[in-house]
């Protein structure tokens, strides 16, 4: 749907359910928790490169793999590295975004470090 301006968007397109609203149910989830929907979050993090391997199905357990992925995600997005699903992290995860992964073949990078990252970016990561 392409509109010449914002006022031309019909109200029926302003839907109440968006792609990643489901993650709101995971608020406050911590390592060791078992919660329906964590597997979908792992799929999300896998899609964007934070969980490198893609098993046939992810579990709903908040395991070490998820914690590690969240820590890297939080570094990349300049968030507090808590390793759990705090409000800031959940809000960032739910924002609309580009479909290209942040980490590709474990080599591409943002703040989480990479041989091709610019020095200033790496320096920025040190400050966090």
């Amino acid at each position, binding site marked *: *749907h*392409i509109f010449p301006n914002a006022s031309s*968007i019909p109200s029926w397109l302003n839907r109440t359910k968006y*792609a990643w609203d489901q993650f709101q149910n995971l608020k406050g989830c911590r390592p060791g928790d078992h919660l329906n929907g964590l597997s979908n979050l792992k799929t999300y993090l896998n899609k964007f490169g934070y969980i490198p391997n893609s098993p046939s199905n992810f579990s709903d357990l908040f395991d070490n793999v998820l914690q590690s992925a969240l820590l890297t995600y939080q570094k990349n997005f300049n968030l507090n590295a808590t390793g759990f699903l705090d409000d800031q992290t959940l809000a*960032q995860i739910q924002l609309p975004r580009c479909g290209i992964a942040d980490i590709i073949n474990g080599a591409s990078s943002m703040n989480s470090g990479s041989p091709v990252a610019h020095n200033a970016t790496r320096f920025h990561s040190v400050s966090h």
Partner: protein
Amino acid sequence: YSFFPGRPRWPDHRRDLTYAFAPENGLTDEVKGVFTRAFARWAAVTPLTFTAVESFRAADIRIGFYAGDHGDGEPFDGVLGTLAHAFSPPSGHFHLDGDESWVVTGDLRSAPVTAIDLESVAVHEIGHLLGLGHSSVEESIMFPTITSRTRKVDLAVDDVTGIQELYGANPNGNPSPPSSTTTPPSSVQERDMSRKGGA
């Protein structure tokens, strides 16, 4: 800034690139003009040029709006979520999610929460088409997320430094890159952050 693994870029003998739109989308000149402006932002700081052509098959960069599964193994997911994706050089594939509410121009303050500024996303995806990965600099165009009802179209220093590392500067251009601007209206941003829990 970052690059794709292996630092792919358009080769030296391909500095004058062409782009075309999927004919089945039937885009208006006004919509095509959004992409023209987005390409111009990158052309201003590099030796690259971008020219619109009619032939979709023959173009270096092929732009199309598609919904759901569109055959490249990266299906779109409906309203919000993933907005678009583009492939590293020299692929030239640039896909936008046809389910989004794309806005071509104007004030976004009164827009529904689903409204996405088309030019903002176009400038970002062109960065990928040219070889840039994502950046952790929030003000940069190559930061991976964008809030709906937000317009961010000016290249930041981080974007310009990255792209010039791949291609060099525009020999005829202004050596100082433009500053980056993000223009969410404050009242709208507050409502949006309230819904999303703040970001």
